[in-house]
């Protein structure tokens, strides 16, 4: 049976490799892909949108509908993950683990007891015991703010350099996940709660779709950012560039929230109490 599978895989792989021989060679100017609309994008992007990065202009302006529905796909992925994994019934466990901060002792406290409520010497830790690591915590405290700043730069500077809403949103989400890994899940819920993440992931889609509706209100087609020149007070070409930025911010917020939601649900197996 195993031989049979290998033969099938080799057969299909061979057919696929044989088919790639008919492809136009890489970077061929006579290839169908670079003859149809590409020359127009390359020649006209700067004068129509004033965006030097053609990829961003195509992604958010010329192919705005595609990107909007990509954002909606990511939004639905986050919502589907909640529906699949989220467990609403919380398993009540009487046991609690605390760490006494000045001495580093780990305390196992039975149900009904607890540290004094106003004491800052005790820190709640997970039942699945992980050793306290000063290097990891201090290192992540140094890295997280800079990676968040870099993510904002990637979102805002997507016009001029590689990047944009998707990449920036993923980096922003990764910085929050790094915070959650290096501390614990309970502490990261106090920074970004599940409710806030769900709201943000809807807000991103609303920003994107709302920009399109704003364009129709000011008398042009859906997602034709030139109409925004009336409220932004700039000329039509600059307004298209600003419209791309608004859309990218929406994408970034949505992607960030979905990444955080996926991590919360996977790491705690849907219970949202403690995890990795």
């Amino acid at each position, binding site marked *: 049976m195993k031989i049979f599978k290998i033969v099938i895989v080799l057969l299909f792989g061979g057919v696929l490799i044989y088919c790639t021989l008919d492809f136009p060679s890489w970077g061929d100017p006579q290839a169908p892909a670079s003859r149809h609309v590409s020359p127009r994008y390359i020649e006209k992007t700067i004068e129509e949108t004033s965006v030097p990065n053609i*990829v*961003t202009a195509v992604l958010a302006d010329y192919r705005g509908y595609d990107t909007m529905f990509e954002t909606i796909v990511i939004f639905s992925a986050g919502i589907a993950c909640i529906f699949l994994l989220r467990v609403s019934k919380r398993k009540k466990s009487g046991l609690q683990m605390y760490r006494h901060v000045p001495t580093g002792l780990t305390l196992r406290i039975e149900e009904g007891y607890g540290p004094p409520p106003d004491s800052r010497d005790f820190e709640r830790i997970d039942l699945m015991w992980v050793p306290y690591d000063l290097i990891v915590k201090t290192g992540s405290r140094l890295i997280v703010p800079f990676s968040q700043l870099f993510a904002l730069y990637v979102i805002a500077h997507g016009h001029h350099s*590689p990047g944009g809403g998707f*990449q920036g949103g*993923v980096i922003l989400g*990764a910085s929050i*996940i790094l915070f959650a890994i290096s501390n614990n899940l309970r502490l990261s819920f106090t920074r970004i709660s599940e409710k806030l993440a769900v709201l943000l992931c809807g807000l991103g889609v609303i920003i994107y779709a709302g920009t399109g509706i704003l364009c129709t209100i000011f008398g042009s087609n859906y997602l034709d950012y030139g109409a925004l020149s009336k409220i932004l007070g700039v000329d039509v070409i600059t307004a298209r560039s600003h419209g791309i930025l608004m859309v990218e911010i929406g994408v970034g917020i949505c992607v960030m929230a979905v990444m955080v939601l996926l991590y919360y649900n996977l*790491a705690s197996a849907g219970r949202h109490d403690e995890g*990795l």
Partner: protein
Amino acid sequence: MIWQIEIIVLLIVMICGIGAIMVKDLLGAAILFGAYSFMMCLLWAIMGAVDVAFTEASVGAGISTVLFVAAVFRTSRRTKD
């Protein structure tokens, strides 16, 4: 373009891909998959698709590895087959 580097990167991509299927330890498979994504990111960069390379580096090598590790942490570390 330095074609030797391209050949080496393609070889590493193949080794990582086959290794991610063959290895019994799922955590190792997740890490091999991250290495695979990073090598694919290098290939995109060699071909001049910088935006795609950026996406591959952040999504493929960054976030998806973390999500795999989180899933392995919550399930089992060894494959049944």
